[in-house]
């Protein structure tokens, strides 16, 4: 500290933090005089922070030299290992950190052999780890070294393992070429050599990891199964915006890291030049998973992390931004594999061409969560050999401590009707099986909002086989054409699995065709089958082409073999109410109706809950009951007030719905003995003067006391 005081007015004073520079200047000059240092420019010398450490650095070198690199001191090693090497020399705490190191200072040259280049990079890695450890131990307020690879091409084989805190790896498009099955860059605590300490995980976590500007290129001769970059047990991890990966079976492997983990706008590209190698179905561009942690080998032997959750460290608060992830002529399986995390947001990612599902949630352990995950404004482009877009995989374990929670907002699920359409997709495809598949009994929450589903050749674009909590599809648009008409857009299939969502809500979605042809629409937008708990279908719209309401579905919801639970239909537009196959008489299990009352059969309800019946009721007036038999029963429940009504057999193949203009009363209409062969129920209004008319929108609206109405069809 320099203190300047006005000799005439001592209250006038100022202090300057000169960081010891004046005295450093003296010490540095002494080093220069002794030949230990060469000062290359004044500006570099200005930033020397600690001449005492510089002296230690100079004195510690027995087989190398101290030099300036950028603004800091570095050691140039002339011995790779053993006595005299940087590693050996730097076994001194409190070394001055070097700034802006490049491989050239460790003997690397582009003209060297692969082996020699690899050795040079390894020397730099060792030096970085050592000097960072010294820095961390004794000089916490000083900056660590920046490892700058520039824009060169490095013909090397990893792994290059960084184990010290404050890793800062920079490049300006430097290309790394590897052909061994190892991670190219590994970043992990030194304790990973044995086991991180489960008793205090945070002590073992490596802090502050920055990587930016790399082009990591592998698999020149052999497909790799390892990751280009593997980051384990670190926190404050930043993988920059300027990364490119190519030719690895796994791009970025995040294991057990802690918040925040930021993965910038990386460009991930998988391509393998090996003829005939069109992908083995393995590999992921990004993996987010947990890491086992142990204090001792004995502990590891004696315990199972799946029963002792404390032996898992799982990532939290992972951010993935604006990725471009695509495959060339060797397709990876998956863009993002999520095995364990608490907090994940993926925003603006574009994924193209994988040979399995693009997004896979495959819970690693019953003791690890996959929760608080959000995908926003992503474009899932199913070109190439992609099997599907999103899959929640059955983890095949029973009771769990953590479940799966995920939301998709404003994403586009593109099934790639013509999967080979993109010029830069190297592997031909056959079209996607599904856009969204939920087959995990641990999905506590899956909400899909304002997304677009289109161009899928699969028979069911969204299929639910298992679940746990709630699955909500709200405000989405499903668009098909004649070339990719599914059997149904959404299939809720509880036929073969024991655990199903407690509630499924399909609400305010639009189902449409963009070619304007009714024939392009599926027969049923929604199919519910097997055992469900409660499926609510409300406020959806079907459109034919761009404008008119499409009223020509055979039925909006198809129900077959509904063995448990209820399907509740609310307000909807387009299509007819048609429980395709009302439950057969042989089924006898006890089920509950919408009010919780026990009924003898599964039931399909259509509930018009708010009295706004205009279009809905008008459409229902053309209800197809052709599958009902003479002993079946058709009910019109009127929980609210309604005019005195009755259903009558008109004797002409229709059932007529009769209402009189009398003071309204609540009641239930039962129309037994529907005539055999009846095709429709026509709602006919018998007026008090004996005339009759069709029930029209205006008629219903005139009955202002209507508060709710439900209709159900079942076998008696």
């Amino acid at each position, binding site marked *: 500290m320099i*203190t300047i005081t*006005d000799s005439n007015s001592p209250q*006038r004073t*100022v202090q*300057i933090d000169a960081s010891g*520079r*004046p*005295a450093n*200047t003296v010490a540095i000059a002494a080093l220069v*005089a002794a030949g230990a240092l060469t000062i290359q420019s004044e500006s570099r010398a200005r930033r020397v922070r600690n001449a005492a450490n510089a002296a230690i650095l100079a004195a510690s070198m027995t087989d190398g030299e101290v030099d300036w690199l950028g603004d800091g001191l570095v050691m140039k090693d002339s011995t790779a290992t053993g006595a005299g090497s940087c590693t050996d020399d730097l076994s001194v705490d409190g070394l001055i950190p070097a700034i802006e190191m490049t491989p050239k200072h460790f003997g690397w040259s582009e003209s060297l052999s692969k082996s020699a280049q690899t050795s040079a990079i390894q020397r730099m890695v060792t030096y970085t780890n050592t000097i960072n450890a010294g820095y961390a131990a004794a000089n916490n307020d000083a900056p660590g070294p920046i490892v700058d690879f520039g824009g060169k091409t490095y013909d090397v084989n990893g792994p290059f393992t960084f184990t010290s805190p404050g890793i800062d790896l920079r490049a300006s498009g430097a290309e790394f070429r590897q052909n061994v099955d190892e991670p190219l860059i590994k970043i992990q605590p030194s304790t990973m050599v044995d086991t991180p300490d489960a008793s205090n995980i945070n002590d073992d976590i490596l802090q502050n990891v920055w990587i930016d500007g790399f082009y990591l290129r592998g698999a020149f001769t052999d497909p790799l199964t390892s990751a280009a970059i593997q980051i384990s047990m670190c926190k404050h991890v930043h993988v920059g915006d300027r990364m490119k990966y190519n030719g690895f079976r796994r791009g970025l492997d995040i294991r057990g890291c802690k918040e925040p983990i930021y993965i910038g706008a990386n460009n991930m590209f998988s391509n393998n030049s090996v003829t005939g190698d069109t992908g083995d179905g393995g590999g992921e561009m990004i993996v987010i998973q947990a890491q086992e942690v142990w204090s001792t080998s004995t502990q590891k032997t004696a315990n199972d992390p799946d029963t002792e959750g404390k032996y898992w460290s799982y990532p939290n608060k992972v951010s993935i931004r604006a990725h471009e992830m695509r495959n060339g002529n060797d397709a990876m399986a998956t863009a993002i594999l999520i095995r364990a995390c608490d907090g994940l947001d993926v925003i603006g990612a574009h994924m193209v061409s994988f040979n399995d599902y693009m997004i896979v949630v495959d819970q690693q352990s019953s003791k690890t969560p996959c929760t608080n995950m959000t995908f926003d404004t992503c474009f899932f482009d199913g070109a190439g050999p992609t099997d599907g877009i999103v899959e929640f995989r059955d983890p095949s374990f029973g009771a769990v401590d953590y479940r799966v929670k995920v939301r998709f907002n404003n994403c586009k699920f593109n099934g790639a009707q013509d999967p080979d359409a993109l010029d830069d997709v190297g592997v031909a495809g056959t079209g996607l099986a599904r856009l969204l598949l939920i087959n995990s009994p641990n999905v506590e929450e899956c909400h899909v909002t304002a997304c677009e589903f289109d161009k899928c050749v699969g028979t069911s674009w969204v299929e639910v086989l298992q679940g746990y909590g709630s699955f909500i599809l709200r405000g989405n648009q499903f668009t098909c054409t004649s070339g990719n008409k599914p059997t149904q857009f959404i299939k809720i299939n509880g036929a073969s699995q024991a655990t199903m969502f407690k509630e499924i809500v399909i609400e305010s979605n639009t189902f449409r065709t963009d070619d304007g042809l009714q024939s392009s629409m599926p027969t049923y937008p929604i199919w519910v089958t097997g055992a469900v708990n409660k499926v609510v279908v409300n406020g959806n719209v079907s459109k034919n082409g761009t404008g008119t309401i499409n009223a020509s579905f055979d039925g909006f919801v198809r129900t077959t073999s509904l063995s448990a639970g209820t399907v509740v239909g609310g307000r909807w537009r387009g299509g007819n109410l048609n429980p395709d196959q009302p439950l057969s008489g042989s089924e006898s299990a006890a089920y509950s109706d919408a009010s919780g009352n026990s009924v003898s059969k599964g039931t399909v309800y259509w509930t018009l809950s708010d009295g706004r019946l205009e279009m809905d009721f008008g459409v229902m007036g053309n209800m197809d009951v052709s599958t009902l038999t003479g002993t079946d029963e058709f009910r019109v429940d009127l929980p609210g007030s309604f005019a005195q009504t009755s259903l009558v057999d008109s004797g002409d193949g229709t059932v007529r719905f009769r209402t009189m203009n009398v003071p309204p009363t609540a009641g239930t209409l039962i129309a037994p003995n529907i005539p055999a062969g009846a095709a429709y129920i026509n709602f006919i209004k018998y007026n008090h003067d004996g005339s009759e008319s069709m029930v029209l929108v205006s008629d219903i609206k005139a009955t202002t006391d209507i508060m709710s109405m439900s209709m159900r069809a079942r076998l008696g």
Partner: protein
Amino acid sequence: MSLRIKPGETLEWSVVDDSGDLTGTTIESAVSFGDFYYQLTVTEVDLSIGSYTISATSTEYFPPGRLNCDLKYTVSGTVTYSDTFSVYVDKRVTK
């Protein structure tokens, strides 16, 4: 508190640098703002304990406002500078 002066006042600063022995160091200092540049005089007191003084022959024409100032250290061709600090020149009233 900061360093302040009025034009015409006597400038004499006592400096103590606690960073160590500065023996053999040439110390220079100046104030400047825009086109104004004035070389100050540095006089050693005891550089082994970092003690020296800074003075000006005349401050009569120092422009009112904030002047920049720093210290330059030279040892055998090795040069470093201190951080830049401010010296405030107030307008004088009494003539």
